């Protein structure tokens, strides 16, 4: 094959760093997003270790209370906007074009821009640690008037949130345009893998709410520097209004972080149960129902601000209603396993861990929905336990599951199964040691976001900290497995990789995937991924 021919048919990547800077290839960008999110998980994880180190025993040992508050604030911002969200965007980049028979994402240059905004945004946010007045310390919820006390970090914080929002919106637009326009012939919407469906709905949520957050933080900025009083009571503004605006973004944001996880798990469980997903269309409708409800429940985050009883009742009922479609999903997963022929490779283990531990987070969510009882749980460690259960053994476990599941397809090398299983079991044990005792702490009356506590909380905080350090160390097993697999240290993967795997990427494409997946558009008219009736 001559060089010219190779150039025509296989326009391979540019060598060196410029490949990554200039790439418009969805696989390169997917990999970049995933690597970036891994780096942010490590940074955010280190911040959480500062928190858990200070809370290890009662008394102040290591940090100033103000720095402690910076750590809780920055930990949340890094994990949410830097860890979970880019990780799912990375998966969407990598998988959606492949699963739909599309040549690439619809808007490849925007895709490149969307990614490269992120390191700038988080570099800027990280640099606030070294500024006068320290990093933001008013909590990731940025409630005024407290957030008005932020020092020089304030404009950098606001600008970095703007950038993260722009990045998310570019990703979301790309997903929508790709799914609606670039599906191969025959790939009907109701034939799409659930990961594509959940991401399509997530993308609409992103477009709806990221501008709301941008508006809220812009008003904070003008309140601080340009003399407006949107949220300052002394000037006729309303501090509670900020909370309403923030949570109108914040609650859909919760589902932005969990709906793609539902998609991942809905694809992995059928593979390892060797059985079609139970209730495909009800899964799609349930996802849409959850997304709709996510817009009308925001005030359950702020039951204690003093709302009219009618409003409290409405938000209680609407919130409880979310457990219906969420329940449908869990039941469908269990029904998929029922009378299957199951094996328990690492992706399946993480998916099963997801179903059980996410459901536990869902139970505490139902408890929190009950307004009169929420007055007790609100802003206590019970809430901390709740959202960490849905985010860590929820969203993050689904990310582990996804990486183990698709990594052999991406790299052509099978990861080390023994290490994968070890990673799962240690993670599952330590995540529970870390977060389960926090339920007890909250019920016993320990508020969240405090750097020191009275002595009756000592035992469970000690236990929680031990779990945190052990969980963090466990992740080095994953890191080792990941790096060695990318370097091809282990066995070659087959094209189908998993015996029960169904879908375009498993049945029609080689492992590793070529740099450009489809040179010619595939015809999927006869392709039946799951029975339609």
């Amino acid at each position, binding site marked *: 094959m001559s060089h010219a021919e190779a150039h025509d048919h296989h326009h391979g990547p540019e060598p060196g760093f410029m490949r990554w800077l200039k790439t418009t290839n969805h696989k390169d960008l997917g990999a970049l997003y995933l690597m970036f999110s891994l780096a942010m998980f490590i940074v955010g994880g280190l911040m959480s270790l500062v928190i858990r180190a200070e809370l290890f025993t009662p008394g102040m040992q290591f940090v100033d209370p103000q720095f402690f508050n910076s750590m809780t604030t920055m930990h949340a911002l890094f994990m949410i906007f830097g860890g979970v969200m880019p990780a799912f965007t990375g998966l969407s980049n990598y998988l959606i074009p492949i699963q739909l028979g599309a040549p690439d994402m619809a808007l490849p240059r925007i895709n490149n821009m969307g990614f490269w905004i992120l390191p700038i945004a988080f570099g800027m946010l990280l640099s606030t640690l070294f500024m006068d007045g320290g990093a933001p310390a008013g909590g990731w919820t940025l409630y005024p008037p407290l957030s008005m006390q932020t020092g020089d970090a304030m404009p950098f914080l606001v600008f970095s949130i703007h950038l993260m929002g722009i990045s998310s919106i570019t990703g979301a637009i790309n997903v929508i345009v790709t799914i609606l326009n670039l599906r191969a012939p025959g790939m009907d919407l109701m034939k799409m893998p659930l990961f594509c469906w959940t991401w399509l709905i997530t993308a609409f949520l992103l477009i709806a709410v990221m501008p709301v957050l941008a508006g809220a933080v812009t008003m904070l900025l003008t309140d601080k520097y340009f003399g407006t009083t949107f949220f300052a009571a002394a000037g006729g503004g309303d501090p509670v209004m900020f909370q309403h605006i923030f949570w109108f973004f914040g609650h859909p944001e919760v589902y932005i972080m969990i709906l793609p996880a539902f998609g991942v798990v809905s694809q992995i469980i059928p593979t390892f149960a060797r059985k079609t997903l139970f209730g495909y269309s009800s899964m799609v409708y349930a996802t849409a129902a959850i997304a709709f409800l996510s817009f009308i429940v925001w005030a359950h985050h702020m039951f204690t601000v003093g709302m009219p009883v009618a409003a409290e009742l409405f938000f209680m009922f609407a919130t409880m209603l979310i457990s219906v479609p969420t329940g449908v999903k869990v039941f469908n997963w269990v029904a998929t396993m029922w009378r299957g022929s199951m094996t328990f490779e690492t992706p399946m283990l993480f998916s099963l861990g997801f179903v059980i531990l996410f459901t536990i987070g869902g139970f505490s969510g139902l408890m929190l929905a009950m307004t009169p009882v929420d007055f007790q749980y609100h802003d206590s460690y019970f809430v901390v336990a709740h959202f960490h259960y849905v985010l860590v053994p929820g969203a993050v476990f689904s990310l582990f599951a996804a990486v183990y599941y698709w990594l052999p397809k991406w790299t052509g090398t099978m990861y080390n199964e023994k290490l994968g299983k070890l990673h799962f079991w240690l993670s599952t044990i330590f995540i529970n040691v870390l977060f389960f005792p926090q339920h007890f702490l909250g019920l016993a009356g320990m508020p969240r976001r405090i750097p020191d506590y009275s002595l009756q909380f000592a035992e469970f905080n*000690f236990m929680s900290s031990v779990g945190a350090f052990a969980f963090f160390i466990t992740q080095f097993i994953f890191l080792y497995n990941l790096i060695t697999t990318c370097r091809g240290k282990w066995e070659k993967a087959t094209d189908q990789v998993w015996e029960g795997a169904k879908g375009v990427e498993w049945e029609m494409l080689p492992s590793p995937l070529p740099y450009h997946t489809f040179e010619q558009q595939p015809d999927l008219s006869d392709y039946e991924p799951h029975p339609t009736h």
Partner: protein
Amino acid sequence: MSSAFMSRAGALMSKLAIAASLGMVSQAATAEYALNMPVGVTEISREVYDLHMLVFYVCCVIGAVVFGAMIYSIIAHRKSKGAKAANFHHSTVVEIVWTAIPFVILMALALPAAKTLVKMENTRGAEMSIKVTGYQWKWQYEYIDEDVSFYSTLSQDSNFARQKNSGVDLESVDNYLLDVDNPLVVPTDTKIRLLLTAADVIHAWWVPDFAVKKDAIPGYINETWMQIDEPGTYRGQCAELCGRDHGFMPVVVIAKTPEEYQAWLAAQKGAESALNGAAIATEQNVALAQ
């Protein structure tokens, strides 16, 4: 460090053993830590506790059914045991049933919750009112129409012990971080209305034993109420992040019988007027000097 680690681990082990032997959910009165929400000392707090246990048990039952089915399936339907996959993939009847049943369960939870909520928000018929103002980082209590008002800050002992590497043995401090110089004193068996606001940032006044948590917001006056059944000392904390010393502005409430409370109030008024007199005298001196 390592010896502290070992002793803490030992304490944890022995206490978990005690908790296990007493039953996980019961109030382990012998242990100094708690596993569950306090039942509290007001009618509302007892109702809230009952709701909490109700929804907890409902979750346990649902969990047992769902996880039970899942675990059974994991054990019985595994390939290594020769299980062959069935090929059913949906059932409209089953799907309607498991949408409808949760709906009914939710109604059964929501109705009693709504009833309690309406009661909690009904501040009418209060026999006395106290204005609570949050500051960074203390509370001010003003007894409305009584001319009694004071600030309540973290006790000196706790404040000294909580400084970084203070070297103080925390066990020797009375109610470390949950003690104040001037506690709020209130009568039992009286419907007390609290009016909450804040002077700088948002705070939240929380006493678990009363099931009362309400935000104190600048520019707002929030209302809540409590009627305490038993005399005693009840402790809580600020629940809304309010800056550097958010963790160090506890709430302490002493509930006295109405008679003892009246006596306390009278004594306060005496002290207050003496203090006020001194303040007025000082102001006059300042005015004269000018």
